[in-house]
């Protein structure tokens, strides 16, 4: 039992801890615990009553029954509480363990909030541990590379500026075969909607851009997509603890929207990107609210469907279930709108339990899936409980309006042989909507 016995080799974690000394560690830990952090850390540390109620909250501890090292409080105990107790005097090996816990065994989904009487924010504590790891350079290889891409290209996938524009033009061309009047307007100043996506869309899932363009086109939305950097709303730097880069990315995103003088940003079906634009990046930059409103697809689709801009002549007949992504439910309360949207699209909806704000995490979010193949087993084993929840619905389709949730759910679906398929809401709308403009 314990993190030391489940150590997973990661090239950068190994290399980075090899370069650490106890003095360096202590200096960095103090710069956070006594420097950057403030009252929240102190109060949470002091008032966490070690009652263990959160053990019932976390998909990791529910999937590893009886192993306290996977519980939220157990994870805080092995990381931040230990750092505070020792004033940062820990070995490089211990930092490795803490990094593995913070980056791969907590999705910062905040389900434990519903379990803690005191109001301890475990996700915040883990993000502080990640911050320390970032300052020590101890970040898993794959997600660090993604963060580097963000810093060099302002997007997550090393997409170059011409490749981005070219992908959009290519999707526009493809879509025009089906919708002759379709446009993906680039940098169209003064549009109602600026549509932003995460970099994996132009890189691997261009079909989603096609679908979004078709939906915008058929709904008659005055929209645009940016032709320059800032188009990627995603944010792995928020996940690695590189808050300075998070701020830089969000500034680029907001300023792009401000420069184009759009009314609002509508974003694709992604959870963490919503969090970073709506809730974290803005704060780091000093904005209490947000300089430009960001609307998640679920809410945007809800508008399109309820105002009749998109019509659904025939609903999807097969039974579906709904997965609530943490960043838009616990992060923004879209539980009901998500349901209304799904019910407008599907005839037969089977709820999973637990659901809505008590949703169990996909185990991919919080940057965990971005830590790459070495940690896939951690995610799959750590989310057996979600596999059981999915299996209990007995349906074939899971609707999950979030990229990371798709990745995480698909992995458990295949590992536990659930025989299910994931769908974006955009997939369903595109499939079901009236297409008066199609040839």
């Amino acid at each position, binding site marked *: 039992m314990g993190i030391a016995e489940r150590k997973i080799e990661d090239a*950068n974690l190994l290399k980075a801890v090899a370069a650490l000394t106890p003095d360096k560690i202590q200096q960095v830990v103090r710069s956070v615990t006594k*420097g*950057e952090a403030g009252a929240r850390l102190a109060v949470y540390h002091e008032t966490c009553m070690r009652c263990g109620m959160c053990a019932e909250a976390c998909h990791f501890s529910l999937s590893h029954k009886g192993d306290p090292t996977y519980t939220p409080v157990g994870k805080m105990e092995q990381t931040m509480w230990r750092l505070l107790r020792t004033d940062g005097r820990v070995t490089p090996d211990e930092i490795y363990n803490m990094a593995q816990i913070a980056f791969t065994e907590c999705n910062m989904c905040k389900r434990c909030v519903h379990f803690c009487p005191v109001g301890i924010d475990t996700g915040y504590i883990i993000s502080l541990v990640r911050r320390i790891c*970032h*300052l020590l*350079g101890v970040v898993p*290889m*794959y997600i*660090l*590379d993604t963060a*580097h891409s963000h*810093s*060099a*290209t*302002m997007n997550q996938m090393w997409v*170059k*500026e*011409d490749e981005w*524009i*070219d992908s959009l*033009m290519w999707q526009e061309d493809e879509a025009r075969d089906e919708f002759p*009047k379709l*446009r993906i*307007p*680039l*940098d*169209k*100043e*003064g549009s109602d909607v600026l549509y932003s996506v995460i970099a994996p869309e132009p890189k691997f899932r261009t079909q989603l851009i096609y679908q979004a363009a078709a939906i915008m086109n058929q709904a008659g939305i005055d929209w645009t997509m940016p*032709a*320059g*950097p800032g188009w990627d709303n995603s944010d792995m730097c928020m996940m690695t603890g*590189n808050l*300075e880069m998070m*701020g*830089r990315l969000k500034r680029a995103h907001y*300023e792009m*929207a*401000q*420069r184009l*003088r759009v*009314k*609002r940003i509508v974003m694709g079906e992604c959870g963490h990107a919503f969090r970073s634009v709506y809730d974290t990046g803005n704060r780091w*930059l*000093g*904005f*209490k*609210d*947000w*300089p*430009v*409103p960001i609307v998640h697809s679920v809410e945007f689709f809800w508008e399109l469907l309820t105002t009749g801009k998109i019509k659904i002549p025939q609903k999807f007949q097969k039974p579906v279930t709904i997965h609530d992504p943490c960043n838009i439910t616990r992060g923004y309360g879209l539980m009901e709108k998500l349901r209304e949207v799904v019910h407008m699209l599907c005839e037969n909806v089977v709820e999973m339990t637990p659901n809505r704000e008590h949703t169990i995490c996909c185990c991919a979010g919080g940057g965990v899936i971005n830590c790459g193949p070495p940690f896939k087993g951690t995610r799959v084993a750590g989310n057996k409980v979600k596999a059981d929840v999915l299996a209990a619905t007995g349906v074939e389709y899971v609707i999950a309006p979030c990229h990371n949730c798709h990745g995480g759910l698909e992995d458990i679906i295949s590992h536990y042989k659930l025989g299910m398929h994931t769908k974006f809401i955009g997939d369903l709308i595109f499939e079901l909507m009236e297409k008066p403009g199609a040839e």
Partner: protein
Amino acid sequence: MKNSGSQPASFASEWDWEKGKKTVVASVLPKDPEAWQEELYVSPDGTHMAAVVRLEDDSFTLRVNDGQWEQSFEKAWMPRFAPDGRLTALVMEDDQWTVAVDGTPWEERFDFIWNTMFGGQSQIYASIQSDMQYGMCKEGEPWAELHDNATDFSLSPTGKNSAAVVQVVPLKQADLETFAKGAYTVAVNGTAWEQTFVNAWTPVFNCLGEEQVAAQVRLNEFEYTIAVNGTPWPTTYNCVWAPSFDPLGSAVAAPFRKGGRWGMAVDGAEFWKPTYYQCWNQQWSFDAKKLWAIVAPEYGKFTVACNNTPWNALFPVVTDLVLSPQGTRAAALASHKNEEFRVVVDGVAWNDAWDMAYPPVFSPNGQHVAALVRKKDTMTVFIDNKPVGQTFTKAWQPAFSPDSSSLLLRGVQNGALVRCVLPLNELF
């Protein structure tokens, strides 16, 4: 965001400043309502409009007023007027890209071209990719040296020189080691600095238009500073924003972050103590006596500071800081959640609030401020807190005559493109 200030006087002096309203194009809509016409662009002097039109499936060209370019292209996008009135568009023929200027494509072709930019003397620049090598080209001529990637394109104030952040060392997949050693730097007219950095951003030129360039650089995972001509300041910071040169010399100012707050550094020394929750978009007055910036003295409350003294009025968001040509006055936009836009001049907000506002424009003598604003579907221009009396369904930035006596409005009224010259003495 770049200061869009006032137009270069050399071009505006040649414009038609005769008082009155003229119809430039009777109908901005296509004659055939079914025809494919994209969004409108209008020349700085308001005498021309342009829009991409589609002739058939893979054939695009530009409509200009009531005519169109003779030549058509497989693709055409990003129509933009240069300050001197030339119309440019990015066009594709035989899978090769170039810029067409007033209908004539450059002879040089590239695998891709984007991001048209204009120099102070109306030089036409664009970002290019050829054989997966990146850089810029000026009037068709590419940099002598291209690079593995290029971003953050920038021109000198005179428009004679160009710079960008370039990747000079190839990176393999997930190549953390090379990245950490530094694969990026700044190239000026294609020639890269010798020093490399983990990252570099926002190269800016010395105001005197020489080949002196400063940029933000990142030295390792968490240390940032400013490099001038490749040499980083000895001081490093938790974070920095874009630098700017003192207009009379070579001092460089840049916002920096320390202990969670922002201040201003000049040449690596603390100039404004880090007390702000945010500090960015600094601008020097032409005589370098005043340094202005957008700052947040309290969390979530922004304003403009001059020489480290913030205006009293605070707003949730402040953008588009513009200085008067004399550098003694400033105007900016305030907003909340991208609504309730206000024009704030010298610390005082105009009475009205709008759904959208555009960067304020100072008259050349610095005495007047005009701003284009929109409420619902109606656009208009306010000058010194008063409406000019003309409304438009779509309008573009107003411009002052070089002698500050008249204001030029450009916009669409009743479906027609009009240009309107209003003598200021009749407005007040």
